[in-house]
């Protein structure tokens, strides 16, 4: 029987952060004071909550007026960080965002916690509907340089391809792949980017984000996350070859 790829655990897992997001609409509670009271009562074991704002750039220049950078802050909720700073919960007017930092405990351990936070979010904001769920795996790993050289295709199935030329050398890349699974209604994006090389290695970030509209409330949310979890692992395994995966053993 094939082992589900999503159940394989790597001793040196490249996942540096995993983000679960439930996007909602039409919250019935908008008073941040009331929200704060509910959250303070329920969110135990965290550092003091921080207000969380989104920033929107507004008009820059009007007519012949002087150039001006204008940005507005919209406080949309609160951010809770656990005492070990490994885990962050954003309770927001338009959704719930939960982050786990390295070491990632695994999908099986995180989902029950997510369900608990979701209940708290529902009590605090009373959203009318769930618009979308998404799951994001941010992986970071180092590809070794061999005498200051690296052939990306030795490790990556996706990524840059540059024909050999004495006059043209590749120094870095940022690639975004727009992916989907029509049958399951999953949309996704894989972002592969290099960071500035260090002495003997090139750090790589593989950021896989998948999302879907859940088919219903309640349990459908969680079966939706199951589907995103499986699909994300499929994209991960397609993106990297065996030689790359050996780096995580």
């Amino acid at each position, binding site marked *: 029987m094939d082992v589900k790829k999503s159940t394989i655990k790597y001793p040196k897992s490249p996942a540096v952060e995993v*983000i679960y997001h439930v996007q909602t609409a039409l919250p019935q509670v908008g008073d941040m004071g009331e929200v704060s009271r509910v959250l303070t009562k329920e969110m135990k074991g965290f550092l003091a909550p921080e207000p969380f704002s989104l920033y929107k750039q507004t008009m820059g220049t009007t007519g012949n007026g002087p150039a001006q950078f204008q940005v507005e*802050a919209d406080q949309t909720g609160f951010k809770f960080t656990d005492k070990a700073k490994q885990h962050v919960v954003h309770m927001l007017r338009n959704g719930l965002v939960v982050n786990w930092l390295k070491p990632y405990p695994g999908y099986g351990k995180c989902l029950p916690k997510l369900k608990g936070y979701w209940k708290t979010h529902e009590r605090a904001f009373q959203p009318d509907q769930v618009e979308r769920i998404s799951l994001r795996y941010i992986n970071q790993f180092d590809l070794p340089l061999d005498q200051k050289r690296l052939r990306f295709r030795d490790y990556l199935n996706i990524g840059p391809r540059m024909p050999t030329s004495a006059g043209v050398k590749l120094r870095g890349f940022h690639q975004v792949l727009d992916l989907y699974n029509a049958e399951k209604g999953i949309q996704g994006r894989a972002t592969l980017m290099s960071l500035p090389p260090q002495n003997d290695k090139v750090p790589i970030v593989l950021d896989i984000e998948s999302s879907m509209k859940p088919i219903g409330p309640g349990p459908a949310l969680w079966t939706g996350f199951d589907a995103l979890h499986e699909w994300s692992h499929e994209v991960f395994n397609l993106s990297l070859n065996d030689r790359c995966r050996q780096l995580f053993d």
Partner: protein
Amino acid sequence: MPTTIRLTEPHLPVFMTIGADDAYRITEDHTQELRYTMELLRAWQFSDALSNITRSHALGALMAACAEHNQGLRHEATLGLIHPYAVQLAIYFISALPKELPDPECGVDRDGEVNLEWFGAKGHLLTLSISGTGRIAYAYLHGDQHERGAIRMQEQLPARLVELVGRFK
């Protein structure tokens, strides 16, 4: 009007150099560049790991300071406008800092220039202000020692400023 600077900073990650129209340029068309950066910020704002790579905590603090300054403009007539080019340069400065150097604390001066600051033990600080013309005025204090000056932004981060920031590692 500020001139166009072609960026050649080796520490700048690729994703920061891709603009709507041009790569490797900070242009006079501030609306395009800043719009792209704001979109990137939105994509990273929920990620703690990426925020360490992209320094988006510092960029978010810069946005918060700009937002508060803009609100102040409605009442305090003596506050200066924030020039978009100053914000572009500040974002570039923060993003191009070598990985081992710490994030600055960000703010906006009363005259609208963007300020970036680093603090060590009491009596040790570096403050720099970036103007809409690309001029950077700075002051450095360390006990009895002090230094100040003005440097114009070029293709790479001013070496003297990078050296001073390095004292706060």
